[in-house]
């Protein structure tokens, strides 16, 4: 027994123990690195095991002011792909079954993987491969789905439109772009977003809130139920329904009347600022901007020389022509430049210092009321000249100009009104600095004389002209025009509930109203006269250096309890009385009576068929 201690190997227990200690030490260090220093593994584990299934909310429906359904949802099917599951799929077969070509497939796959186009890309989650298959396309593909592992079907909904009207107001819904994804975390590639119109402006209300189911997924991709029994699942919150202030029947009539013409109609309920109709022509059927043909049609419309995608009612900036004279009269009265009895001469126009502004023949000299009724150019030129030359009141012409501009701005010109639609233009109201720059500081009332009759540098949108009508109808105030009357469970923005007063007193408005009434009873707007209610109106014939004059009408009715204020603007329609007045009259009749008389219906048909432009691509399928 003692022999065994011979080789004195007892010290080797330290070596063996040491080996054990070193191994355990190395492993603990390794564990430290794996478990405590890196979040990567936790993230990978979560993406392994948790399958976040998005629950899409139903987008809010859109109705017109009478509750008529305009936009609703219809089921559609998206094809989704999980990249690391789809390897080795029969690409040719897939292309055949989905009726797509191979180039499209390759391009789409690259788009999905492109981190710039698709910032939220992950190998493990579903990515949108193809969107909005119709029910028939879907049912054909569903039978073959099992051939293609990694491809899934996601039920979505697409917008459907009850009537082929109001495309510019309603807007449309399309796939989000990279900018949307970047600026708002809510969106992931393949989501839908409002692109234009109300769909865009009220996107946050319409879209609702996405829900999420957290499911457990095993190594073979099988779903093993809800994580923690669904404790962390979130139900989707449906989007809010919108009620528009638009009267669908009025809108439909407006679009009919504007067929084959360029321009716009805006009608406003003066009391509330609610927009009753907003026609932009050429128009297009909103139903062509749905589903997979959206891209193709969108391209076609954007290339059309008549620009059907442009909402002329808020984006078209036109010289207001004589409709602008009402605003001038109000300014001159308020500033004391003229009184109701002030008369100015007119000998077939305004002649002063070698400058002539032509006018048609009528009795002269004349005071304000008949000047509005006959749309006398000379009266308003003299008025503006008197104002801009009045050095007692305004030390310099610049001061006069600034005062004039402030009046215009108070009436809602020169700046965007703030309508609840994207893309509204501000138009143009020049100021003193503008003319200083253009004329090197040397100018006077004569230099800018054409602004008094709504020509020259002045431009307004049809919405602004209609709003002028509403302001006059209200005798001095307006509420910012808006197309949405009511949002489900949410008050309207205070902007759309607050009166904005102009700088002009009510009694001066009464004088202008009298002039506009006289224009209908015995002036330029005679064809709008009806026994049913008292119409007030003002024509406009805007000179157009590029072609025939534009035809404009601004009016409201009934005179003492205005229900509707309207602007009709027809490009190249020549005289205001040619298109503007009759179309305006038909629109007012439709809205106030709820229908057109037999006679008016015939008249409407006639105007529907009177085309100024030869082809409107937007009306095609």
């Amino acid at each position, binding site marked *: 027994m003692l022999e065994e201690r011979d080789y004195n190997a007892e010290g080797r227990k330290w070596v063996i123990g040491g080996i054990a200690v070193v191994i355990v030490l190395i492993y603990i260090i390794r564990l430290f690195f*794996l478990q405590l220093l890196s979040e990567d593994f936790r993230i990978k584990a979560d993406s392994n*095991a948790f399958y976040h299934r998005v629950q899409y909310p139903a987008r809010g429906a859109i109705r017109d002011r009478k509750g008529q359904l305009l936009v609703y949802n219809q089921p559609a099917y998206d094809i989704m792909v999980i990249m690391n599951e789809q390897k080795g799929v029969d690409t040719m077969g897939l292309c055949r079954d989905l009726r797509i070509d191979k180039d499209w497939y390759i391009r789409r796959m690259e788009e999905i993987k492109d981190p710039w186009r698709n910032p939220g890309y992950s190998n493990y989650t579903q990515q949108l491969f193809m969107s909005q298959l119709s029910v028939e396309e879907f049912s054909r593909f569903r039978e073959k789905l099992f051939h293609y592992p990694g491809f899934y079907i996601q039920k979505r909904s697409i917008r459907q439109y009850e009537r082929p009207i109001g495309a510019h107001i309603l807007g449309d819904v399309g796939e989000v772009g990279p900018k949307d994804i970047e600026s708002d975390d809510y969106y992931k590639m393949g989501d839908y977003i409002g692109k234009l119109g109300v769909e865009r402006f009220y996107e946050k209300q319409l879209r609702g809130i996405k829900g999420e189911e957290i499911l457990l997924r*095993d190594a073979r991709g099988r779903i093993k139920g809800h994580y923690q029994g669904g404790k962390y699942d979130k139900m989707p919150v449906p989007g809010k329904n919108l009620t528009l202030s638009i009267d669908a029947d009025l809108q439909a009539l407006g679009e009919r009347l504007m067929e084959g013409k360029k321009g716009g109609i805006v009608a406003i309920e003066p009391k509330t600022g609610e927009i009753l109709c907003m026609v932009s022509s050429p128009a297009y059927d909103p139903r062509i901007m749905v589903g997979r043909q959206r891209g193709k049609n969108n391209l076609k419309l954007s290339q059309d020389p008549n620009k059907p995608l442009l909402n002329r009612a808020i984006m078209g900036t036109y010289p207001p022509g004589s409709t602008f004279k009402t605003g001038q009269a109000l300014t001159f009265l308020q500033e004391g430049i003229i009184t109701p009895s002030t008369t100015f001469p007119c000998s077939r126009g305004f002649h002063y210092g070698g400058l002539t502004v032509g006018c048609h023949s009528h009795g002269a000299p004349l005071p304000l009321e008949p000047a509005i009724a006959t749309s006398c150019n000379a009266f308003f030129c003299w008025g503006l000249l008197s104002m801009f030359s009045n050095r007692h009141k305004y030390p310099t012409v610049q001061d006069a100009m600034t005062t004039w501009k402030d009046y215009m701005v108070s009436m809602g010109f020169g700046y965007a009104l703030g309508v609840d639609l994207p893309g509204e233009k501000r138009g143009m109201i020049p100021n003193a600095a503008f003319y200083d720059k253009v004329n090197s500081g040397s100018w006077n009332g004569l230099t800018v004389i054409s602004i008094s009759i709504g020509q020259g540098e002045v431009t307004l949108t049809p919405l602004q002209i209609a709003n002028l009508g509403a302001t006059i109808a209200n005798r001095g105030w307006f509420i910012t025009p808006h197309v949405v009357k009511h949002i489900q469970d949410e008050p309207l923005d205070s902007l759309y509930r607050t009166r904005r007063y102009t700088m002009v007193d009510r009694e001066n408005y009464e004088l202008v109203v009298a002039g506009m009434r006289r224009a209908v009873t015995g002036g330029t707007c005679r064809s709008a006269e009806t026994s049913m209610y008292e119409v007030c109106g003002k024509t406009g014939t805007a000179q157009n250096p590029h072609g025939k004059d534009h035809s404009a009408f601004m009016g409201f009715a009934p005179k003492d309890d205005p229900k509707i204020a309207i602007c009709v603007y027809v490009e190249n329609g020549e005289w205001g009385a040619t298109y503007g007045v009759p179309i305006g009259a038909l629109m007012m009749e439709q809205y106030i009576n709820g229908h057109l008389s037999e006679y008016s219906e015939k008249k409407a048909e006639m105007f529907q068929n009177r085309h100024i432009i030869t082809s409107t691509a937007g009306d095609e399928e």
Partner: protein
Amino acid sequence: MKSERFSVWSSVDWITILFYVALMVMGWISVCGASYDFDAGGSIFDFASRSGKQLMWIGTAIVLCVAVLSVDERIVESLSYLLYLGMVALLVVTPFLAHDTKGSLSWIDLGYGIKLQPAEFAKFTTALCAAKVISVYKLKLSKWLHLILASLIFLVPMILIIMQKETGSALVYASFFLMCYREGMTGSVLFTGIAAVMYFVIGARYAEIPLWGVEQIKLGEYLVLTLIHIFTSVLLMIYGEDRREFLRVSLWGLLIIVCAVFFSHYVLPFDASWVVLLVLVFDIVYLVLLAFKDHVMRYIYIALFSLGSIATFYSVDYLLTDVLQPHQQTRVRVLLGLEDDPKGAGYNVIQAQIAIGSGGLRGKGFLCGTQTKLKYVPEQDTDFIFCTVGEEEGFVGCAVVLLLFLALILRLIALAERQVDSFGRIYGYCVLSIFLFHVFINIGMVLGLTPVIGIPLPFFSYGGSSLWGFTLLLFIFLRIDAGRKRLKHT
């Protein structure tokens, strides 16, 4: 007899039993976590579930403990040869009786749904026999002949188990060399053995991984060659005469090796392994010159070790990557237990690391791990059971388990060293070497540090055979240890 049985319970080492119980309880918790199904739910005590069955195995293992402790160790000692021969015979016939279980021929079906793996029980019979032979014949393992004779005892079952296509289990018998080292085998054998294993493991594990983004450098080759330089330097340090001179030479070599990588990364990408090889050639030439100058034969041996190391590494590498066809390579790798990879390169190891890494400091909590339960980790309640510990109990749990194993092994060293006769000591070292090997390979594999070799983690992995095998192994030693007092008295 009565008084003697009493003495067993008072003299048995309760500290070891405490570690044993602690490990087994934690093991059962892990099996529960690994086999729990979110869908099915159900009770973890249900005998139809894996956790329920494991509870049954634990119960029977405890009965086994009591039984083993009740048997006089002298009877066990005297039965050593018989047990060994019986087991060898069983191992010989096993492949003929066994059903093919995932390519392995090591399981014998006993009916009633119970399967037995004789290889698990061969460990303690071999250990007993080795202890008996070495102690009885007073073999001096420092002598080559005696060492070869002793190693035959465990080489025989090793080869038989390889024939059952259980390479992993067979490799465990290599751990007997640790016992041999304690019993006098020259250190250079162990050193050479450890060095060879390290070359192989590091070379194979990191073969295709580039170093620091430089495609030209294979991490495995670079590391192994650097290791050879370090080993050569260490040997020179231990056996050489002018240590300061040698230290300077080896540090210069290391500096050049490191600089080569920096140059390769920042200036011009090239295979820095060539630089390491040049340093090694210089080492060898230097050693040979020294040997002739100082007439010291030891330097030649060290040069031979260095040369042999290079030759071993490249011949294995060449054999594995160039001579064999890809499918043959795979077969060899599977045979060596290097490949157990149904889903392609490294899937198991990656998923295992994800599971462990996601546990964090405190873990996700009992039955709350997702990776293991959703079957992302393969063999999750057997070979990869440690993943469950990592995911559910976190860093704290893993460290506790590792330290418990370390405590057990160190305690066993202490117990082995206090044995009065060499039989007990040799058997003790066999036991602790086997535990150390299992912990080293199994946890290393799960942590992605050692190759994937399918052997169980003692007291954790699901299965009756391995639990019984380890229990027998340990408690026979505890019985021997308990008996040492009586020997003193007589």
